[in-house]
């Protein structure tokens, strides 16, 4: 199992899910991770290690979805099954299979929810977008652009954020995906325009940081924060009203499915099939909120808590 980092709870849970499943199936699992998000070379080294180690398959969440392809090919040539988890490779068929959240869809859900929640005010909303990092990793772009699409904003180039011209966007800032960055980015954008009322955050920790900033500005009650992930602290934050809505994804399931698929490959040589209609196996995403909006399917926090990870 090779993840982007092993410091993000999402990947930690993914690892735990894989470990549990591996123990159940009697498989040996070794885990590798990059140092920081975007740390591509360490992932390449990890793939090489797996080949040297004689592994039968690799579960991979790629930091650079295009760049990793050559190494993946090397592994497949060496007879390993490579399954992309969470993040599809580019091109998607570079891996034998992909078990992923549809991150664009995840963004779209919270975008729609936010638009629905504001109703008519959506036309003159003031939006802050708190992203991951200036290197614009794919998930970051997909969630950001999905959100804007869902909210009804023209995307310009859907492969990058920051090129939109819609006046409702106050600005983009980067958070490194943690509370500290979330707070500072939110403060910066609030000084720029104190009337911000919609905040998209890349993940729940940055949402928590953004909330602290709003609190210090005394605006925590009249701003909608939306996020993606569905970790247990995040769901609890939705319940407490810190976050308005979040798109929940299922890393445990991704990992478990991945481990099963590799087991099947090792035992019988059968490769997993993608979800019909998509070119990857969608592990699903659901919107979690206690204030459902018409036209957007959602589950409440009780249900979300039952499904949350970490």
């Amino acid at each position: 199992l090779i993840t982007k980092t092993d410091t993000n709870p999402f990947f930690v849970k993914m690892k735990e899910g894989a470990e549990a499943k591996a123990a159940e199936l009697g498989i040996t699992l070794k885990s590798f991770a990059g140092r920081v998000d975007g740390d591509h070379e360490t992932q390449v080294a990890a793939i090489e290690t797996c080949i040297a180690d004689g592994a039968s398959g690799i579960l991979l969440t790629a930091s650079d979805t295009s760049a990793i392809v050559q190494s993946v090919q090397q592994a497949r040539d060496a007879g390993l099954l490579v399954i992309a988890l969470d993040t599809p490779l580019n091109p998607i068929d570079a891996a034998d299979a992909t078990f992923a959240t549809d991150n664009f869809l995840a963004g779209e859900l919270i975008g729609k929810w936010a638009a629905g929640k504001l109703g008519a005010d959506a036309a003159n909303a003031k939006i802050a977008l708190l992203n991951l990092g200036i290197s614009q990793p794919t998930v970051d772009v997909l969630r950001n652009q999905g959100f804007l699409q869902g909210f009804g904003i023209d995307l310009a180039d859907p492969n990058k954020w920051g090129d939109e011209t819609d006046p409702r966007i106050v600005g983009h800032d980067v958070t490194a995906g943690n509370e500290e960055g979330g707070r500072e980015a939110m403060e910066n954008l609030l000084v720029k325009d104190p009337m911000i009322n919609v905040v998209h955050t890349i993940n729940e920790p940055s949402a928590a940081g953004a909330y602290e900033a709003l609190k210090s500005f005394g605006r925590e009650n009249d701003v909608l924060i939306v996020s993606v992930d569905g970790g247990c602290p995040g769901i609890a934050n939705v319940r407490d009203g810190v976050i308005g809505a979040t798109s929940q994804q299922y890393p445990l399931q991704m990992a478990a499915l991945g481990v099963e698929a590799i087991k099947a490959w090792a035992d019988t040589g059968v490769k997993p099939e993608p979800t019909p209609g998509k070119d990857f196996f969608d592990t699903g995403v659901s919107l979690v909120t206690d204030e459902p909006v018409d036209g957007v399917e959602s589950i409440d926090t009780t249900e979300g808590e039952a499904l949350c990870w970490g």
Partner: protein
Amino acid sequence: MSNQTEAETDLVARAETIASFEHQHTLLSRIQHALHSNPALVPLIVLVASVLVFGALLGTKFFSSFAMTLILQQVAIVGIVGAAQSLVILTAGIDLSVGAIMVLSSVIMGQFTFRLGLPPAVAVACGLAIGTLIGFINGWLIARIKLPPFIVTLGMWQIALASNFLYSGNETIRAQDIEANAPLLQFFGQSFSFGGAVFTYGVIFFILLVLALAYVLRHTAWGRHVYAVGDDPEAAELSGVNTRRILISVYALSGLICAFAGWVLIGRIGSVSPTSGQSANIESITAVVIGGISLFGGRGSILGMFFGALIVGVFSLGLRLLGADAQWTYLLIGALIIGAVAVDQWIRKVSA
């Protein structure tokens, strides 16, 4: 070059001269001399200039007591860590582990309260103790085993960061839980305001810390010894300074200050998060160097670091308000780091 290290108290140079050749006292030469003998003055001027420029460009949005104190809040953590870093760099060392110590301490404060169920005050004390201990180990390895500071703290950085992730299990403790069960952890997040200015206790702590360290460095034997060790350790040893004890105490104190930074961090972000502070080492070094403290030790003042940290804060916020996007801001801050130091160097050359 005179009084390189004597900046803190007397911002106007003294005219104490035993015997002196006659020479002209023009206004310019006085300014030059003042700049020259007070290393903290240059970053102060850069700071004031940049505030004025951004104020002119942005008007009251930037030039308000609210925005000004917001910058203080944003730089408080880097600044506190920068104070620790300043001490270390004055001894001609470097501490790459500051950020890791900070996060590990904050995680310990949180987890000891919530996982072990210790009273918050005890958990905070444990966090501070562990920060100090790590600093002490750094100092011991550097002073006794004579390993290079860069390498020791590079290793310790990785060790502390990995321990942090392993111990916390990457779990965040939520702000709401802390508020309900252990408000002491968020102590430094409390604030008071007058006018539009908002001061958190963390900011107050930062300012008091800088003033206290400035006093200690300038007016106590320990402080003079820190400079002497950084200047020429062999000479300091021969002239009667216990260099080992000084080095160990500096690193241990640095660890303690970083642990305090961890506590302040909880106040700022509300929650306890193991992923914070990963670039605190580079940012604190940036503040120190922009503040005019020499990386070769023995020269500079902690007030300079204070202004250095504020310069970075002013630029970050100012550029974002001017509408530069994140990548451009990043680029411009790079250029401005170089620019600020170039101005500093230029002023020093004029007055040399």
